[in-house]
Structure formats: structure tokens, C-alpha cells
């Protein structure tokens, strides 16, 4: 048989990119999208244009998730973060493509970014049950008291993901926030939100409870403003804000004394450096417990 049937190129199926809020994938409450293009202005997809109300819903979801996530054992959180790395490894090719398109990188450079991002999940997976051992500890107070300081997550953290590094940078700001038990509302890179929206799909299948990470796409300034002012948000990471916006948001955040992580100079150095512990400790509280120890008896030891 040598039929000369014309081979028709198969028409691919486009993906509808959606927000990730409370473990579900809603479209924006606004019903609107915006065009996402690659570095050469070629259209890639439409991304949801999240509104203030999406931000509000995300805070509700993050708050709801906080109790169980912060109450989970550090070991359990570590297992789940490691699971994220496992799931990402399996979807490596997809992310390499998305990162290459988003950031205009060669395939090999994009692959290096994705590999580093996977390893970053592994790095933070290992921190969940160690950070308390590094930043907490017993204090030798001058008196008959047991005195122990332990770190605790601060609560719901709004995260402005870096604008340039759409994936490695994104992972580098999300993972340290949730590793210690906080829950997060992440505003994806405005220009390159697709890797962040795809990450939501990975998180949803990594045993991470819904609401621990919530991903919004849209105009960073528009979404960040209500989050910075929100009375039920405990902290804000301003990495993805320019200088003017960062200042505005920090002022708004002062209203309920949110913990603020200002944009760091290192942020645009490619995110390849050893992350250290700073991004975790920025969103930790230290709790110190006193308890009397006393002596064995009222009249000293007879032995």
C-alpha cells in the first residue's frame, strides 16, 4: 500500500491557564485575561487578570490553610516539599519550554534554571525540620527557670514574585515561606506568569494542602495594593516590586505592622547563589517559653 494520503499537521490543544486558589483552579473573578507574549512579542497564551476580589479570596484560602499547615510536623512538610521536587522532575520538559519562552533563553539555559529550581525545593525540604535547630535553642537564664526559644511561622504571607526570573526566582521566594509553615499568596511575574500558573498544577498534585500556596496572575501593582493593606495578611515579600511600588506597599503594610522583606539586591543576580536562611527567618516569629525548675525539695537534698 502506498496511498499518497496527505499528512495534515495535527492541531495542538491549547491550555487554558487559570489561577490557583484554595487548591482549585478558578478563572479570575474579573472574567478578564491579558495577553502573555514571549521576548519577541509572539503570543503565548492568555493569563487570568486577577482582581482585588481574587486577592481577597486568596487570603481567605491561605488563612484557612494556615492552621493545619503550620500544625503539621516539620517532617511532614519536608516530605511534601520533596514531593514537589519529584513531581517537577517528571514535568521537567514542560517547564524548560515555558521558561525558555518566558525568558527568551536557550533550551540548555532554561534547563539549568529548571534543574536549579527543582534542587531548590530539595534544599528547602531539608530545612523544615532543621531551621528550629539553627535559630532556636535553650537560653541559660540566671535563675531557676527552663527557657526555650523556638521559631514559629508568622502566618499568611503575600509574595511578589520576581519579575525577571519566572521560575527559579519564583520557587526561591515561595519555598522558604511555606517550608516553615506559613501560607502564601503569590503574585506571579506580570510579564511571564505562565511558569507560575503551571507550578500551581504541580503543587496541586504534590500532597500540598489546598490554600497553602495560592497563585495569582495579573497587574502586580493592582493585586499587591489590597494585599499590602489587608489586615489578615501578616507579612509581605516585596521582591517583585520596583522601588516606588515597594515603598508604597511598605507604607500600606505598616498599618498592621506586617513583616516586610524589601527587595534584595541579590534578587537579580540570577538566583543561583546559596540561598542561606534569610528568606525563612524573615517570616518567622520567635517564641520564648519560661518554666520554673525549682529544686527537688523544700529543705535541700538529703542525698
Amino acid at each position, binding site marked *: 500500500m502506498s496511498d499518497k494520503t496527505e499528512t495534515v499537521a495535527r492541531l495542538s490543544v491549547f491550555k487554558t491557564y487559570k489561577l490557583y486558589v484554595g487548591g482549585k483552579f478558578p478563572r479570575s473573578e474579573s472574567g478578564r485575561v491579558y495577553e502573555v507574549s514571549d521576548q519577541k512579542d509572539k503570543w503565548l497564551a492568555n493569563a487570568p487578570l486577577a482582581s482585588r476580589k481574587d486577592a481577597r479570596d486568596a487570603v481567605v484560602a491561605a488563612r484557612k490553610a494556615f492552621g493545619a499547615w503550620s500544625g503539621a510536623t*516539620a*517532617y511532614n512538610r*519536608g*516530605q511534601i516539599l*520533596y514531593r514537589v521536587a519529584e513531581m517537577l522532575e517528571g514535568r521537567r520538559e514542560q517547564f524548560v519550554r515555558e521558561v525558555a519562552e518566558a525568558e527568551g533563553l536557550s533550551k540548555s539555559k532554561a534547563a539549568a534554571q529548571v534543574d536549579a529550581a527543582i*534542587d531548590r525545593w*530539595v*534544599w528547602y*525540604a*531539608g*530545612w*523544615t*525540620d*532543621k531551621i528550629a*535547630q*539553627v535559630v532556636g535553642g535553650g537560653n541559660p537564664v540566671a535563675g531557676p527557670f*527552663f527557657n526555650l526559644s523556638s521559631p514559629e511561622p508568622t502566618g499568611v504571607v503575600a509574595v511578589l514574585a520576581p519579575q525577571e526570573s519566572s521560575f527559579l526566582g519564583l520557587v526561591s521566594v515561595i519555598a522558604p515561606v511555606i517550608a516553615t509553615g506559613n501560607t502564601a499568596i503569590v503574585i506571579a511575574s506580570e510579564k511571564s506568569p505562565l511558569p507560575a500558573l503551571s507550578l500551581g498544577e504541580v503543587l496541586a498534585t504534590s500532597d500540598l494542602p489546598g490554600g497553602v500556596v495560592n497563585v495569582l496572575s495579573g497587574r502586580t501593582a493592582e493585586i499587591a495594593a489590597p494585599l499590602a493593606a489587608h489586615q489578615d495578611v501578616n507579612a509581605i515579600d516585596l521582591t517583585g516590586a520596583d522601588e516606588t511600588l515597594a515603598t508604597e506597599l511598605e507604607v500600606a503594610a505598616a498599618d498592621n505592622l506586617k513583616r516586610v522583606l524589601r527587595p534584595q539586591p541579590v534578587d537579580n543576580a540570577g538566583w543561583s547563589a546559596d540561598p542561606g*536562611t534569610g528568606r525563612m527567618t524573615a517570616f518567622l516569629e520567635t517564641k520564648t517559653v519560661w*518554666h*520554673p*525548675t*525549682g*529544686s*527537688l*525539695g523544700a529543705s535541700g*537534698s*538529703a*542525698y
Partner: protein
Amino acid sequence: MASASASAFEYAPAPESRSVVDIAPSYGLFIDGEFTEAADGKVFKTVSPSTEEVLSEVAQAGAEDVERAVKAARKAFASWSALPGSERAKYLFRIARIIQERSRELAVLETLDNGKPIKETRDADLPLVAAHFFYYAGWADKLGHAGYGANPRPLGVAGQVIPWNFPLLMLAWKIAPALATGNTVVLKPAETTPLSALFFADICRQAGLPKGVVNILPGYGDAGAALVAHPDVNKVAFTGSTAVGKEIARTVAGTHKKVTLELGGKGANIVFDDAPIDQAVEGIVNGIFFNQGQVCCAGSRLLVQESIEEELLDSLKRRLSTLRLGDPLDKNTDIGAINSAEQLARITSLVDAGQAEGAERWSPACELPSSGYWFAPTLFTQVTQAHRIARDEIFGPVLSVLTFRTPDEAVAKANNTPYGLSAGIWTEKGSRILAVANKLRAGVIWSNTFNKFDPTSPFGGYKESGFGREGGRHGLEAYLDV
């Protein structure tokens, strides 16, 4: 015991399937990534302590094999220690995951080879083993944060000798921190329980671990002694008896070898009159009957405040009558077999001494299986500090009950031993817990609980219970040049 009484609600046998694990008729030594026969061709048999059935025939390492294994480990050390920590971490995470995946198989294997109940291997040993690898995996790329300087270095080749009471867990306690810090390993499992370590070798293979990083040498004390004495071993880690620990300390004298020893114990479980009684009873039972009492940190001395002695002993005896002794593979078994005929003989002789010295012996009605090594849960009252059963480590399901009147006296009696591994304190009064804990000379103090283990928590003894800590951030120090 429940199995012997005519209770209306008699549990039918609920055996875990033995077929989940394939045991080969013979095993070699694991050296440089390969299974190999012993240089002198020697083998030994490993038996199931609950039935005396031969499980497999295992190559028996000798001095020449130690030489080969240390050489392989030395060769592997250069590239293993040069790997970025994040890469070493990923190997250890792989191992942890494979252990989780194969934990049912490993639990059955461990129960067969050791004699401990499947309930324990399934719910305690295996989860702790996987968790230990997870925990130290995470340290591999964070050593600069551990408080030992910016760039602490590994020591080299670690020679590790482990006991038979928690074969795979002790392997994890030894291998996980050693590999995380960049050392390579030659490990000798106990002669009565070599199988899970040999299965672990297969896990290393599945994980793609470079050859020579982990070497396993089943064998007897002579192989252990040769390993400890080997000049190219930089680090010695031993868990076992205090007598052997002292021998090792003598062997390494005058060398540059770093040593950690985790030895015997005679833990005091102190129960005050304001204790949560029902939970204290559970804690006492768990403290001395977990793993048939073959636990170095067992709460083998019960120190009970005189005012509640009678009430507590009544409750304790009632509770002991519900323990189920028998087939370790039955999911409802609480008390399994003693690990070996030798250990059973040791327990028996100490118990006989206890009776001869005048202590009062009690056991619940209890039928022992006809084959295998068994010892009924046993409680001694009227025990004094002078009795051998109050001083010697029995390493069996035997509890010595002593009394005290005041916290001072409790602390004095608890500390009145050459050992210092563990202790328990039962009281609802927080300040008493802390005051007593402050005075106890023991490395691990459990309050209102007992026999709790966690990879994040350092474990190890005072005095003749050994030195060095395993577990936690502290456990890294033993494998770093600090």
C-alpha cells in the same frame, strides 16, 4: 496472657504474609558495590529466633575482607567527599524514598531475622529508618549552618559496628549521618541479624549510590575488632555492650580515630504520686517490654513513690495480663521472641539470680511457644539497690521495681549506677519534671512518655553508657573534623 485465657473476644490469628519478602538461600559480603564471598570462603547461618528455622546462609567476613572493604571505602572517599552536598543529599533522599516504598518487605524481613513483633517493625523501626535518612539527607548541603564552622570536612572512612536489637534502625543511625557529611562506610551488622543490612545494600544499588561508598560485612566479633583496629579507618562508631565498648576504647587509644560509643543502660522510670496513672502504666510497659526489653535505653528499673506502690502495681499487673506473646508475624502480637539462645540464657541467669537474692518474681499466666527463644514478661518486686537485677543490664523483658519516698531519694537511686543513658519522669507537675531532669545523670530524659525516638533528637549516654550523640544536629559532629 490474653492468648491463654478463655476471653469471649478471642482474636483469630492475623499473620502478616511472609511471601512479601524473598530471602535468598545465601548472601555474600557487599564490597565495592558487589556481592562477594568471604576470602576464606566461610559462611554462617542466620535463623529465625521465633522458630529456629534457618533463613539463609551468609558469608562471614574476616580480616582480609575488612582489608578489601576499607580499601574500597578509601577509594570511594575521594569522589564522594568531593561531591557538592546537594548531590549527596539527593542520593540520601533517594535511599529514604526507596526504604519507604519497600518498608513492608523490610518489616517482614526484620521481624523474621530478629524475632520482634511485626507491629513494631511496621510502626516503629521502618518509619524511623526512613525518617533518619530524610533528616540527614537534608543536612548534606547545609553543613555550614550546623554550628561547626563554615566548611566542616568529613573524616574519611567510618568503621561502624551495630547490634542486633534494631538492626536496620541502627544501620540508619550510623550510615545516614556518615554519608551526609561526606564519609564512606564499612559497616558490620550483628551475626544474628545480617539480613536487613544486606537488603539495604540492594537499596543502595537501586539508588545508584557510587560503589564503595557503603560496604557491608556480615560477621562476628573478630571482624568487628579487625575493622575497629584497621589503620586506615578514621572514625569508629559502635553500638553494643559496655564491655565491648571499653575494648574498643582501648584499641583506638593512641590513634587519631574519632570514636562514638552507644552502650548499655539501666534506665530508671520514676513515677511520682501525682502521675497520670493510666498513661504511666502504658509508659512503664512500653519502657521495658518494647522489643522484649532488648533496648539499651529500656526503663528497666521502675522507681515508684511508696504512697502509690500498691495501686500502681495492681494496674501494672492487670495491664501485663493483656499482653499478647507469640508469633512475631501476627499483627496482634505485643511480645515477640528473644533474639538468640545466648541472649535467652543471659536473661534466664540474671532472673535466677534475682530470685536467689530474694526479690519476688511475678509473670502473668503465659504460654510460651514450644520452639524458638522465649521469655515471659517478668516483674520483680522487693528489689533493692544491692540486687544484681537492679544493677546489671538484663536486656530482656524483666522489670525491677524499687520504691522511693522523696524526689531526692528518687534522683539518688536513679543515678546510683555506672550507666547513664535514659530515664523517665512521671508527674503532672512541670517544675518537678524539670528539677528532677536537671539532677539526673542520663543522656535522654523522657517526661510522661518513654522510648520516644526522632531523627531530629540527639541520643546517647553519660558515664559508662558511652559518649557522643547520634541524631539531630549534634549527630553530625561525630562525622566531621571538628
